[in-house]
């Protein structure tokens, strides 16, 4: 077998053989380039497809499931909501400012492609330790990239999630999530279905930036990766703002019958997927594409990933009207081709056919069956020698609050415009999830992304399941019923059996959790090859799950701060001795070992139901999920933000047998802290028994300015709220050099 002549491809020998056999001839240089792009892991999920199939995708609310630019669910009253998550890990690790910015740009286009208006952004991020200069540089510029792009385009960045762990030192993870809304009838999906329709390319011009971006994202970062910088695209948020408005106005004409953003894989991916999805063909004339620079070859035009471009398929009778809209907004466009019924995508350039390929062949790569093998480290790291209980737990709590994984993220979200759009009812840090209202209705949407890489490293199955559980708890904690999820899987090199095993186990965990909690998966993103070639080390396996929650009436919400002296503090759920992967072990004892928290579907479901139902029924306005740092940190945060103290009797906590430090810092799933006032007590307890959730009164909110944990009469911990606040607030700005 010979490799293709004169062209560099990342295709495997088997893939090259498959292409030659299926096509019955030798592809030319451009055609090899098209296959190379379409068969890259980033586009075709050739390694992950058999695994992600495990995720349940059906549900009564699902309008569009995985496989499209974004998932869409019905939220009632004639409205639909879109949820999408994308990764921009590799570009951000090389050029954090442009990498993160264009990540935002891409996810906005995905949501727009479904015919929905993007209304909120969220950004789960992973960096190395803040003691490293490189990590501080990445953090500062990733945040600035997100801020400068998102703020300017005018979509609020309302929530996020950050983890610091040395495994992300070289290869930081930048996830970008987006929520969109539209009237149900304006949802677009299904590609180019009608032969004779006209293909219009609108938005930015096409340049050499990002040529081969997807094959770059499907490789391990190496010392030479800086030379890949031209593979990182540069964004233009002003043009994106214009594209959003012009696209939505064009859709209003009723003449647009297909819509797709040009992101990874550029025009190649856009044209082939539209034809394949619509079971049609397309003829495209590359001479019509507006170019940014002269002398670009058909190969470069087809593979460019220049930003801010959208592909419209328009019915012939409506072309004039659609183009008028673009002209009003001064959005550049060109008519580049039409839809055919041949099933082939034919590319012309200067009157010559330069590529002619069956759309379905190019759109669907053969699956690669990867080997999965449980890594040897797993059995070793599950065993742990229990560290000694610290003599002063107050100091331990203070120190834990200064851990960047727990400390206030205000330095980050202060730079994001989280208000634009006048929808943001709960802003960053007010509640466990952001809440956006639907103007003109009482409804609201809650959104949150979560994941825990240390737990997943110790137990990928329960780590994956717990990511979904935590995201669901967070939306429930503001009063929303979780209705859909998208997963964002970040792993190392899938060609390594130990890595593929981590991926497979995590997806199994997420899939089982989806079933247990009745949450459909409506989309996702798999990002492999997150490792550093110099050390050969992969990032810790990091599935991140974003969940959308529905609020029927935004007048009933809950937030984190304690509100009133004397209110009873309840804990929902049982605390178990599951310290593996906990922030307490990690930050205080420097241990990443042990049994991490297990996912328990029926218990989780009952706790979640109690949380959002008690908020809906107006029984509480104060709810906080108990996760990183355990219940001690959860209660400390409620004190800090409410400027009130609390008195907790740990005897009352439903628990397994364990020591006091384990009890207050365990990160067991299924738990919330809820406060209830006297007048609502009976109703709350009856709701708890109806939902079957375990609850116990563990203390009271106090105006003492002090947080006290006692074991009956014995004080085990006492801290002033002011010092707690100071440590929690100052940690990240101080680590960043007082900025």
């Amino acid at each position, binding site marked *: 077998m010979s490799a293709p002549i004169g062209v560099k491809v990342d295709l495997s020998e088997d893939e090259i053989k498959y292409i030659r056999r299926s096509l019955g001839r030798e592809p030319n240089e451009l055609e090899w380039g098209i296959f190379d792009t379409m068969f890259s892991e980033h586009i075709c999920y050739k390694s992950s497809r058999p695994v992600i199939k495990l995720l349940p995708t059906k549900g009564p609310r699902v309008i569009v499931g995985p496989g499209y630019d974004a998932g869409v669910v019905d939220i009632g009253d004639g409205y639909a909501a879109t949820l999408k998550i994308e990764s921009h890990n590799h570009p951000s690790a090389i050029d954090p400012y442009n990498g993160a910015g264009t990540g935002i740009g891409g996810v906005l286009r995905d949501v727009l492609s479904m015919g929905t208006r993007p209304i909120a952004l969220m950004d789960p991020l992973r960096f190395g330790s803040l003691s490293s200069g490189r990590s501080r540089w990445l953090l500062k510029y990733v945040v600035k990239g997100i801020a400068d792009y998102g703020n300017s385009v005018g979509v609020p960045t309302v929530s996020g999630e950050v983890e610091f762990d040395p495994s992300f030192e070289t290869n930081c993870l930048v996830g970008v999530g987006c929520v969109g809304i539209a009237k149900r009838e304006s949802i677009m999906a299904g590609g180019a279905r009608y032969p004779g329709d006209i293909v219009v390319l609108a938005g930015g011009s096409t340049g050499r930036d990002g040529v081969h971006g997807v094959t770059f994202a499907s490789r391990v970062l190496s010392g030479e990766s800086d030379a890949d910088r031209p593979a990182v695209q540069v964004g233009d948020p*002003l043009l994106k703002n*214009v594209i959003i408005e012009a696209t939505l106005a064009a859709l209003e004409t009723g003449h647009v019958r297909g819509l797709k953003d040009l992101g990874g894989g550029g025009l190649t991916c856009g044209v082939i997927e539209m034809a394949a999805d619509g079971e049609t063909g397309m003829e495209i004339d590359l001479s019509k594409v507006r170019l940014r620079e002269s002398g670009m070859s058909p190969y470069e035009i087809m593979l460019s990933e220049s930003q801010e471009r959208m592909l419209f398929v328009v019915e012939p009778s409506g072309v004039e009207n659609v183009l008028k809209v673009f002209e009003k907004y001064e959005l550049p466009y060109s008519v580049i081709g039409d839809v055919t019924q041949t099933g082939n995508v034919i590319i012309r350039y200067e009157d010559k056919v330069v590529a002619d390929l069956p759309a379905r062949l190019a759109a669907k790569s053969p699956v690669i069956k990867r080997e999965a093998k449980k890594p040897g480290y797993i059995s070793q790291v599950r065993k742990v020698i229990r560290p000694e209980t610290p003599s002063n737990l107050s100091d331990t709590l203070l120190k834990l609050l200064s851990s960047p994984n727990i400390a206030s993220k205000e330095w980050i*979200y202060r730079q994001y415009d989280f*208000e634009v759009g006048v929808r943001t009812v709960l802003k960053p840090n007010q509640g466990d999830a952001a809440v956006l209202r639907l*103007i003109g209705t009482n409804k609201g949407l809650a959104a949150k992304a979560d994941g825990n890489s240390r737990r997943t490293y110790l137990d990928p199955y329960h780590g994956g399941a717990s990511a979904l559980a935590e995201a669901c708890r967070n939306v429930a904690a503001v009063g929303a019923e979780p209705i859909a999820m998208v997963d964002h899987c970040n792993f190392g090199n899938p060609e390594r059996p130990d890595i593929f095993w981590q991926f497979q186990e995590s997806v199994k965990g997420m899939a089982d959790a989806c079933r247990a909690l009745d949450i459909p998966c409506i989309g996702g993103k798999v990002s492999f090859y997150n490792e550093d070639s110099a050390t050969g080390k992969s990032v810790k396996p990091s599935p991140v799950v974003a969940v959308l929650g529905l609020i029927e009436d935004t007048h009933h919400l809950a937030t984190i701060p304690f509100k009133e002296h004397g209110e009873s503090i309840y804990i929902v759920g049982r605390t178990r001795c599951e310290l593996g992967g906990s922030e307490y072990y990690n930050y205080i004892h420097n241990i990443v070992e042990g049994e991490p928290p297990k996912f328990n579907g029926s218990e989780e479901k009952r706790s979640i139901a109690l949380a959002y139902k008690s908020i809906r029924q107006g029984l509480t306005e104060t709810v906080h999920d108990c996760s990183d740092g355990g219940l001690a940190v959860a209660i400390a945060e409620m004190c800090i933000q409410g400027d009130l103290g609390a008195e907790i009797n740990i005897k009352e906590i439903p628990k397994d047998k364990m020591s006091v430090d384990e009890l207050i810092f365990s990160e067991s799933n299924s738990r919330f802290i809820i406060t209830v006032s006297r007048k609502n007590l009976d109703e709350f307890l009856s709701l708890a028994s109806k939902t079957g959730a375990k609850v116990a009164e563990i203390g009271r909110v106090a105006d003492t300015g002090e947080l006290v944990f006692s074991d009956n009469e014995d004080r085990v911990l006492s801290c002033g709220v002011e010092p707690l606040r100071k440590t929690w607030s100052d940690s990240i700005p101080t680590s960043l050099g007082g900025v």
Partner: protein
Amino acid sequence: MLKVAIIDFPGSNCRYDTLHVLKNVLNVDARLIWHKEFDENTYDAAILPGGFAYGDYLRAGIIAAFSPAMKTVKKMAEAGKPVLGICNGFQILVEAGLLPGALLRNSSLTFVCKWIYLRVENNRSPLARGLTKGAILSLPIAHGEGRYFVDDDKLEEMKRNSQIIFRYVEKSGEVTEESNPNGSMDNVAGICNPDGNVAGLMPHPERSSEKILSPTGAEDGLSILRSVIGFVGGV
């Protein structure tokens, strides 16, 4: 019924927010007008909304300031009609020379989004007539270039003319360095021209006009927008 134009430049991303409050909360006949289609004779007042007109490329507000639409806005201002600039709109008015001074990069050198307190310094401007002098308002800011600067003599002159409408303060009303979110000279947050019919402020009244959006429960932005409407309506 009086008519208010909200002037829409490419990138004016607070366009719908401002329209929503004027139309749905204040029941005003407000129209979103694409900058090329703006005709001053049809409207009683103009609002330049927040956002990033022309991406704020080169410098915040500068490209929009040279647009033909701003010539029309100038005519309105000269005719004594009210013109209000919010955030990016304020930056445009300053760049267009309709208001004195400049808006520089925040002293933190980062974008800042947060709820702050303002004190009403004077209500002599017709655009602030509905406000109580000394009142403390809570509104959000969201900008990267909001540090107000003007030379000392001009500042004195503006004070004499009662052109300073809002200053950043503590919740208690005290003017402090900590309460100044962007390093503005003398904590200045909003100003007007000597006649008082052209005004600009960095905070966003349209984001604080509905109880549901306000962490403090106040609807202070509404009182500012009401003043503008009241002025037009001759109230």
